[in-house]
């Protein structure tokens, strides 16, 4: 197994409140590993510690305990951040720059040679649909345009790891799709993407692995497919007698009438097969049998509620 690109162990950030002598545990011992080439989604309710976790990774905030590594190096070493592209949440790019100048400046800080910076800036402005705005001061850009420019900024030096904090915040649906397409292309090229978002549909569409954090701790983590897989089987039948319905009610997790059909949901395959046998014997018509997957929203809400937090 290759070495993780992001690795944290017991990472914690506590903010002491001097007046009330309380301690706010923004991040409370997070251990995570993100493998190369993975699209990783970090989820959590507002105030669960997502952004503080990202700031810990990028050396904006000092940890109270634990450690974080990027590319196997301590994240406090500047060199560890050389191949990281970052789009912060609520970014405030200097408005005196034009789009081109802004890309050029941040790429220079990443150590990119001048000639390459110029070429790459033009290429990316084209990619994010801002080529015509390249010489306009970014104070005149809309929120969605700034977000796209921010994404271009993060991609400038062709980083192996992209950390995106709410990348589609303020972007219209078309722009959101565009951003997803760009990120999809990067993913196919092998870029590791760490997505911090509260948009579950975005994470569900895009990520391979997910961690749900609540109250500064990892409440659930793993491959997205495993999290949402196998929550049960749905069986739809017609002409179900009252007696058969009553018998199946004991086995089914839910029973609902729907446009002349009866929908049963069963927790496992065995129960579903027994129900099919029973319905066939009772002369009912089976319309469909389908495996039902949980949505990420179901998993998220359940996880957060179990952790004792309001989603």
């Amino acid at each position, binding site marked *: 197994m290759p070495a993780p690109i992001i690795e944290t162990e017991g990472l914690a950030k506590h903010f002491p409140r001097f007046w009330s002598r309380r301690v706010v545990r923004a991040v409370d011992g997070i251990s995570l590993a993100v493998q190369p080439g993975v699209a990783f989604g970090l989820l959590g309710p507002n105030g669960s510690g997502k952004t503080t976790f990202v700031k810990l990774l990028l050396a904006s905030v*000092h940890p109270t305990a634990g450690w974080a590594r990027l590319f196997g190096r301590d994240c406090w070493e500047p060199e560890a951040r050389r191949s990281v592209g*970052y789009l912060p949440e609520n970014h405030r*790019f200097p408005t005196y720059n034009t789009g081109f100048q802004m890309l050029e*400046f941040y790429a*220079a*800080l*990443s150590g990119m040679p001048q000639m390459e910076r110029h070429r790459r800036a033009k290429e990316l402005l084209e990619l994010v649909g801002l080529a015509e705005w390249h010489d306009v001061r970014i104070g005149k850009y809309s929120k969605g345009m700034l977000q796209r420019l921010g994404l271009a900024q993060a991609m400038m030096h062709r980083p192996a790891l992209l950390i995106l904090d709410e990348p589609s915040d303020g972007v219209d649906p078309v722009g959101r799709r565009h951003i997803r397409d760009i990120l999809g292309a990067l993913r196919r090229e092998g870029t590791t993407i760490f997505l911090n978002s509260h948009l579950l549909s975005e994470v569900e569409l895009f990520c391979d692995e997910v961690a749900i954090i609540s109250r500064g701790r990892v409440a659930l983590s793993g491959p997205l497919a495993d999290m949402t897989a196998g929550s049960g089987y749905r069986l739809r039948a017609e002409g179900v007698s009252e007696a058969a319905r009553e018998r199946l009610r004991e086995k089914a997790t839910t029973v609902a009438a729907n446009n002349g059909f009866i929908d049963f949901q069963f927790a496992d395959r065995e129960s579903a097969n027994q129900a099919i046998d029973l319905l066939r014997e009772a002369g009912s018509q089976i319309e469909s049998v389908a495996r039902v997957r949980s949505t990420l929203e179901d998993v998220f809400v359940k996880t957060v509620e179990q952790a004792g937090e309001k989603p």
Partner: protein
Amino acid sequence: MYALVRDTFRESLARKIFWGFLGCSTALILFFLLALNIDLVEGAMAAVTLFGKEVDGGQLVNVQLIVHKILGVVAAFLFTAGLFLAVFASAGLIPTVFEPGRIELLLSKPVSRPRLLLGRYFGTLAVIACNMFYLVLGVWAVLGVKTHIWNLNFLLAAVLAVFAFAVLLTVVLLVAVLSSSGVLATMVAYFFLIMSVPLAQHAQLAPLFRRPWAREVVKWLYYVFPKIYDLGNMARLAMEGKGFQTWMPVWSSGVFAMVMLTAGLWFFARKDY
């Protein structure tokens, strides 16, 4: 580092700070170019007119003296209004870096924190130094052409003024790191600038205090605080062609600046954003 310095320049241009300074300096240079007329008579003597009116009742005056006076005015401008304006204009350039949403992105780059802060410091210093040198070289060239007297010591005044600003800027930097407030940073820098005037008279000031410890405090404050007033005095002496009695104001202000700068970098390295 170059990218950070260039970015500071770009911000000063966008905020019109650079242009404002350039305008003031150009106005002063044009004033000497257009309003002052010096007719050289017999080499060292000259008739001087200002806005067409004769100075000193039309009498011939010593050119060297006139040049010293004018250069003295410019040096006084640099060390008073010039420094006030410079601190006022530049104090906003450092705290803007700490704005939420901007600092996180800068810190995510493969650049160490001291380097980030020093880049901003030297960028701000470069903006002001360019303007100070422009003013000094401009006035120097105008007077040189009009009087044929090329007083190289005047250039030393510019170096000292930039040095004085560099010292005050370390105060701005430290306060900005601690408070992220440009206004507070300006106030504290002004405090040191203003305090340098009475403290320079510490020999006369200390005996006014009745208690011995208060006299000691005045003396110590003089040695610890930056000596902006004394640096201005050194510039004046340089222009008059007189040597310095001591370099103490330079090195002690330098030590003060180093302490401020080190403290600023230390706090910046340990702060959470």
